[in-house]
């Protein structure tokens, strides 16, 4: 089974509740570290302007480039659901390595300040999933624009689109996300 995310971009108002909920739940005090990030894309000129937001975390790719790039074998996929798992003790750190950061097309691997900072990123709220709860970002979204589940199930429920403003689907890593775009 591969677990992944669904994101309804047509609903997203850019309120940042998911980003802050993630920060609070995982106690990420440093604002330079973002497990989940909301970004805006503005296109066109007045008055024909278009605006969309996208909320992305680690996309728990089917073929994760970060894992491939890691020389220390510190990045794994959980067998149970394909979600990513980082072994901070094995990670070589930002300055010594940082290979995962360069490899990831989605800027998911995060490092705090300091030369020894270890890689960290979205763990799909593994502890919450184990308790039968949705990841905290999904449970937070005031627009109910996020979902999380088995990719096959999500595909059945929402269809297959994975291209949207602010997001290009990597055929190489095959990210586990389905996006309903605002503009088609």
């Amino acid at each position, binding site marked *: 089974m591969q677990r992944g995310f669904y994101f309804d971009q*047509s*609903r*997203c*108002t*850019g*309120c*940042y*509740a998911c*980003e*802050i*909920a993630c*920060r*609070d*739940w995982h*106690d990420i005090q440093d*604002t330079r570290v973002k497990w989940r990030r*909301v970004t805006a894309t*503005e296109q*066109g*000129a*007045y*008055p*024909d*302007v*278009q*605006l*969309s937001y996208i909320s992305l975390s680690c996309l728990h790719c089917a073929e994760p480039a970060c894992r491939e790039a890691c020389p220390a074998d510190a990045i794994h996929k959980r067998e149970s659901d394909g979600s990513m798992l980082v072994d901070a003790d094995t990670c070589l750190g930002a300055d010594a390595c940082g290979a995962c950061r360069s490899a990831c097309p989605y800027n998911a691997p995060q490092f705090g300040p300091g030369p020894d900072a270890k890689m960290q990123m979205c763990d799909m709220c593994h*502890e919450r999933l184990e308790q039968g*709860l949705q990841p*905290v970002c999904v*449970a*937070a*979204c*005031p*627009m*109910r624009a996020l979902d999380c589940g088995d990719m096959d199930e999500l595909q059945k429920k929402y269809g297959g689109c994975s291209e949207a403003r602010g997001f290009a689907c990597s055929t190489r890593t095959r990210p586990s996300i389905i996006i309903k775009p*605002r503009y088609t």
Partner: protein
Amino acid sequence: MINPDSETVHLTSCPHDCGGRCVLKVHVQGGRVRRIETDDGPEPQLRACARGRAYRQRLYAEDRIRTPLRRTGKRGAGDFEPVSWDAALDEVAQRMLDIRQRCGNEAIMYIAYSGNTGTFLHSQLGVFRLLTLFGGFTPCWGSASFWGSLFSSEATYGTLVAGHTPDDMLNAKLILMWGWNPAETVQKTNTAWYLARAREQGAHIVAIDPRFTDSAAAFAREWIAIRPGTDTAMLIAMAHVMITENLYDRAFIEKYTSGFGQFKDYVLGVSDGTPKTPAWAAQITGVAEEKISALARLYASATPAKLLTLGAPGRSAFGEQFHRAAATLAAMTGNIGIYGGEPAGFGLAPVGLKPEAGTGLIARRMPGNLPEGARQRKAIHITKLWDAILTGKQGGYGADYKMAYITNANPVNQFMNSNRAAEALSSLEFVVVHEQVLTATARYADIVLPVNTHLERNDIIRPWQGGPYCIYMKQLVESLHASKSDLDICRALAPRLGIDAYGNMSDEEWLSEFWQEARDMTHGEELPDYDRFKEMGLHRMQRGKPAIAFEHLDAGRPFNTPSGKIEIYSSTIAERNDPQLPPIPTWIEPWEGPQASREGAYPLQLISTHSKRRIHSNMHTVAWLRDLEPHTVWINTLDAEARGIQNGDRVRVFNDRGAVLIQARVTGRIMPGVVSMGQGAWYRPDENGVDRGGCVNVLLNDTHSPAGAFCSNSCLVEIAREP
């Protein structure tokens, strides 16, 4: 990791002034808040926004005031020394007694606003009670948010209960978001969610706004950019189309309204020689004639339809006219008293606790309270506080003011003309401020008294615009540092002021009594007893359908106006005999509006918006929220090019009242000739008096509309690139 053995989870809410009232589920462990979740019960869940989710950082903020403070430097400099509670309270009491003896009670001004709102107990009312028992004071009146709407709703409908619950959005075929951006302002919890679902169900949504807002982008099929302050002209021209093309609901107008004839004469130009055609409005508003006609035809034909607005267009020089015109169009299209319609009045819905529940009870039950009339005659409008302090009796005010007592408010930052505010507070003999953090206002205090947050005390809260629920806000942690509640401060001050009637009731006794009284103040819903409610935390009143105003149009007397009808011609306004406040909805060119922008040194119209990273000036210093978006002034690409400004440049926004340094955001999301700033950034003047904090009120004109609206969207500025 969660340790279920020692972590407890409690339900509470936020007491701030966004209009939403959401559920926070707070994890507490070892006496500290560890995490905050939101509603995970049955839908419709009351999910919190980023601000509520970031509350832990506010609770444990470095900048929480730790002890009472006494000023040591110049007012505004922010130099204070810590003092004991006894020393601080003794000084406050001694100065109050002295000022009362020398200058009378009226020399003491009480400035309070919406720092906590919708709560039963911990608001301004405890201080109001104290100062009243002290023999009275000079209060302030007015609303920075929506006075134009309040005034219009009372005049037109005879009530403020003139709105629908947001779930009724699903019944609408057409929604006009008129200067209304709930994706950022929230207004009512779940408003944006219902808008998204209405759009998905096929509702046609149009945004009429100078900016392409987050709401416009997410929900609207069409964006009509309109010059600030000209909305009334467009509405009146839409009425012209409906009248001349015979598209309005004659039966509804005849049966339920009065004064339509006078309005029609004005619209057609019978009374003043100027027909208010779409061509006439196009010149004023900047909206193409065809668009005005098309929107009029659409609104008249797509029933049921909602014209939704809250305060922004009415926060202008003659803002009440906008709301009066909007209500008139709601009547002309027959969208009153029907599901999916909307009266375009003040947005209270007939559901749950009525506004009088909770708020006002402490104040009302005081011995020695001044009669309402006597108080109001002396009250000063919130835009005139600085003028009153600086000019006193000579300026025509009721007293020469010597002292300001300020709680639940940051008026230097949030009321207009911050530089004048600084000058005014600096001129007083004594200023006392209750605060949680050292705001722009607190910096002008002689004594600052540290106040706790809603997580450190018990209270009850409900949505201030009506909603089928209320929340018990339980104290979750001990008061941090040396902070106390406003009420505890009053309890400690009362004996020092010679007041023995303040009462010995505990918070719990007050709350239980208020709850008992509130049980009779619902729109028919039953409330559980107090102990049961406390246990539940969230009490939801079950409803099978939306709550809508004026549902029973033919029963009794639905409109509490002198005529018993919807007053398009308002007899109460007519009695005022004020040429600036005509009894029918009327277009009046605003000061510092589009016409003035073409004539003077300040060609850009400035509007103040809400920011999603703070609630007014609350939470401005919370690092998690600051990180989300930079604080900027929006300027259209054409206006930026003409001034050599590039995106991200540091610019100076200025007029005769002051100057602000801020980062420019060059964007096609705002119309040419208009610039906007999010209100609430903290005023931080440098040695030259230039604000480096990005506080929009530095630029705003401290005056109000004829009816009392806060005219923050009638302001002209120029912008220059800062070298």
